[in-house]
């Protein structure tokens, strides 16, 4: 068809309902606000890795759906999560990204989480252990036993990641949430302790789902010279996408020919435990987490949506904790060659989603985004996105191709929230 006029441009595509979505899903502020309430405050998010707080009293800070969070390792070695909010007058308890509560702070004692403002102190279980001039100010009306921190659901699982849910009573256990998609990796990432060696973040003017889409579709291989020369062969095109309940997708493995990119080497010698050489698995978890194991290095992306057109993506790279310095350096090189901030692929992926973000700013004209490729669920089939938006519709009670319409009316008999 030649270039289209306005009404042709806006006409519904000749595809089935689930094969395209409305761009307002990516650009509308109300949709975004609902996503924070209905999805991000309900699901399990891997906020960091246990190796980032290896010793008792180590901490990390993070946030989910705008709520600041502290992760702390207790003297009992348990990793716990709390809101990073002082129960007194709402000061942020810990301002640094990481550190140790073993050191005393100007306002407080060692081994305590101290609020710098009025010196209330908390232990590693979140109990309040000190209120300055408690009796003088509160007499018997309020005591430290009444003002503990807000504890959050927290589990260390699937390769040592620290998973947190803001929902006190998650409808789905973490095991039921992600156990099945992780089956393909579990033996490899749970055989022995892992360790983070890479961290960087990007803040991109785009919708978080566009990043997840990119991680869920391989049709964009065409923009990666690296993937074209190391991948395109029969085994690659036979690679399957597997849809799991709760909106997750796994991309099945095949053997990558890294040597076909000049200067790159096989990763066989440093494969993760139980993983045949140069295999490549990818786990995409709803609503925006990605675990990507390319033989010798594991990558994990976590999105923190900041607005309909803004997302922070945190990138981690992991190896085995017992790596020798030489092994570690090789893993790091493998990781960086494609995935590092100066690697061959990541830059291209980020340019791609930033460009989508530019055309889908809030208040731009709604249009259709096509997810309609069917190729027997193999690598260039867009089943990953179709599966995701089906789940998204349930959680949001919005139709992905008409987001002002409730999902449940078109899907009578099915429960609107997949979680139930």
């Amino acid at each position, binding site marked *: 068809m030649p270039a289209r006029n306005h009404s042709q441009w806006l006409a519904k595509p000749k595809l089935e309902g689930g094969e395209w979505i409305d761009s307002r899903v990516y650009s509308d502020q109300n949709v975004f606000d609902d996503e924070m309430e209905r999805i991000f405050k309900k699901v399990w998010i891997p906020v960091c890795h246990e190796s980032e707080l290896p010793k008792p009293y180590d901490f990390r800070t993070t946030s989910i759906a705008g709520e600041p969070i502290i992760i702390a390792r207790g003297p009992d070695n348990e990793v716990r999560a709390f809101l990073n909010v002082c129960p007194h007058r709402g000061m942020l308890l810990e301002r*640094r990204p990481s550190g140790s509560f073993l050191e005393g702070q100007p306002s407080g004692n060692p081994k305590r989480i101290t609020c710098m403002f009025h010196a209330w102190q908390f232990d590693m279980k979140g109990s309040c252990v000190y209120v300055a001039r408690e009796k003088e100010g509160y007499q018997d009306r309020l005591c430290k036993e009444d003002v503990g921190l807000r504890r959050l659901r927290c589990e260390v699982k699937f390769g040592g990641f620290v998973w947190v849910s803001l929902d006190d009573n998650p409808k789905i256990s973490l095991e039921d949430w992600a156990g099945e998609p992780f089956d393909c990796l579990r033996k490899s990432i749970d055989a022995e302790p892992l360790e983070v060696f890479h961290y*960087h973040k990007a803040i991109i003017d785009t919708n978080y789902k566009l990043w997840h889409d990119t991680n869920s579709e391989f049709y964009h291989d065409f923009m990666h*010279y690296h993937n074209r020369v190391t991948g395109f062969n029969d085994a690659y095109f036979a690679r399957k996408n597997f849809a799991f309940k709760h909106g997750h997708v796994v991309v099945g493995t095949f053997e990558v020919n890294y040597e076909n990119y000049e200067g790159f080497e096989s990763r066989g010698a440093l494969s993760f435990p139980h993983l045949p050489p140069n295999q490549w698995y990818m786990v995409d978890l709803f609503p925006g987490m990605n675990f990507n194991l390319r033989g010798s290095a594991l990558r994990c992306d976590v999105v923190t949506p900041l607005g309909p057109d803004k997302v922070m993506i945190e990138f981690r790279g992991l190896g085995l904790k017992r790596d020798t310095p030489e092994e570690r350096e090789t893993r790091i090189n493998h990781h*960086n060659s494609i995935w590092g*901030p*100066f*690697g061959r692929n990541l830059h291209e992926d980020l340019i791609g989603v930033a460009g989508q973000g530019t055309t889908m700013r809030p208040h731009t004209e709604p249009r259709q985004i096509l997810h309609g490729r069917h190729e027997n669920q193999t690598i260039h089939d867009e089943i990953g996105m179709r599966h995701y938006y089906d789940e998204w519709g349930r959680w949001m009670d919005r139709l992905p191709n008409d987001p002002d319409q409730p999902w449940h009316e078109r899907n009578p008999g099915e429960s609107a929230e997949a979680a139930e």
Partner: protein
Amino acid sequence: MHKNGHDAASVVRDTIYRATMALDDQKWEDWLDLCDENFHYKITAFSPEINKDMIYLQGQRKEVETLVRLLPKHNTDHSPLRRHTSVYTVDVADDMSTASAVSSFVIYQNMLDGVNSHLDSGESRLFLIGKYHDTFKLEDGKAKFVKREVRLDNRRLDKGSHWPL
């Protein structure tokens, strides 16, 4: 300082500034001409988030050559990078055969693409800051880079880059 030591230090300084100009102009070969056969290039950063020294990219001269030669095959942000380098210290070895230098750099992105080139092109944005830790071989009145460590202060790298810094 010995007169020759003084000369050697200014040769080192000159070489660092020439490298800055070659990199700004994306004249990768000119840049590599300033580097020894055994040149090693490395971009590093310390992450307080994970409490680790990190390597973001590294390679021997041959790998860097391949990297820049394959650049046209890759999709890259078009906004040129402009470096402001200040050489802080130059230390010439007693035998005058090697030298090391520490420079501070600020890299600006001179927007061409931006998020929306209609709005952003022509503007300059702070891209990266850090220090160059360079090691040189001194020979025939010339200084050749043997090692360059680009030590970044940034861990937020947004779109990142395909180009050497």
